[in-house]
């Protein structure tokens, strides 16, 4: 009976330009002693020449393995592609840039909430509510409005599930889910796009 090798491609691999990715970097293997000779097979030399995304198909991997060990029964359990994301040596976002974005969001949000208040005549509504509750007309019902303002911040933090560093429970916040979904969509797009590129290229050369 042939020895069986199970492999599972990783969904995504990060690499530096110039790094040589071997099987062990791209897949997880199970199958005992045969793994040792398989896992050092080079697969792809990362470079930035073809853009910073490359997709490795499981068929490429299976091809490489069967060259090395033709008698092996290889079974792929898991995703059929790996995305290789090639990063130039990590650039930390400069603190000044973060501060700038922070200021933009801070001022922009403040302006947006002020626009919203004018749009919905919040001042008049507050005066009206103050009158209905206490029976007195006050031009600036600050005793209502300051707790209201603090409440806005509380509500937003509650929604995003963060009390700054501390979180209330283990569930991801909507923002984290949104980030995740956005990343997933990008990955799907990259897989599709690279596939089409490859198909176009092979078509072009054969004609």
């Amino acid at each position, binding site marked *: 009976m042939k020895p069986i090798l199970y492999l599972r491609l990783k969904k995504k691999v990060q690499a530096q330009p110039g790094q040589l990715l071997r099987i062990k970097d791209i897949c997880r293997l199970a199958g005992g002693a045969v793994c040792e000779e398989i896992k050092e097979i080079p697969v792809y030399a990362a470079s930035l020449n073809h853009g910073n995304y490359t997709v490795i198909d499981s068929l490429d991997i299976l091809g490489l393995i069967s060259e090395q060990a033709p008698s092996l029964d290889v079974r792929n359990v898991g995703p059929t592609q790996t995305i290789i994301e090639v990063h130039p040596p990590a650039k930390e*976002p400069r603190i000044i840039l973060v501060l700038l974005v922070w200021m933009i*969001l801070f001022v922009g949000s403040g302006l947006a909430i002020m626009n*919203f208040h004018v749009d919905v005549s919040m*001042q008049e509504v507050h005066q009206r509510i103050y009158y209905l509750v206490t029976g007195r007309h006050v031009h600036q019902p600050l005793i209502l409005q300051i707790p209201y303002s603090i409440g806005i911040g509380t509500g937003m933090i509650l929604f995003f599930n963060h009390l700054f560093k501390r979180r209330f429970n283990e569930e991801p916040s909507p923002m984290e889910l949104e980030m995740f979904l956005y990343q997933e969509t990008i990955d799907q797009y990259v897989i599709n796009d690279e596939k089409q590129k490859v198909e176009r290229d092979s078509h072009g050369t054969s004609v």
Partner: protein
Amino acid sequence: MELLYSLILIFIGLAGGIAVGSGFVAFITVLDIVPRLVQMTKAHRFIRGCEYSIVLGVLFFTWIDFRGWEMGFPDWATIPLGLTMGIFVGLLAAALTEVINVLPILAKRLRMQEHLLYLLMAMALGKVAGSIYQWMVFRVW
């Protein structure tokens, strides 16, 4: 004739109310505020109660507004009222930002995923500051 006018007015009122009421509920539903609150408080059994609370709140405040019903409470009674109103508006604002999906894209483009927390904080604090500034200093009316 008088009766006919009254009937027409009743019809217009009812139609307008249905349009506004269903629009309001649709808006709240799209923004997923109730599921979010229920998930946070683990009150899944009381979802029905949350729906009634929204409907009753709308009816109650419409009613006291139209009737001009003064309650004669002291000043400080408006503090919890203001706070709860603010929390609701904050949830609304956060949910809207989230639907429009600006932050994930901004953070990814600028490679600031690790600083997302600070960006959120900027938005929440910005809203509090803008709001307080508006009530205490800023005046266009």
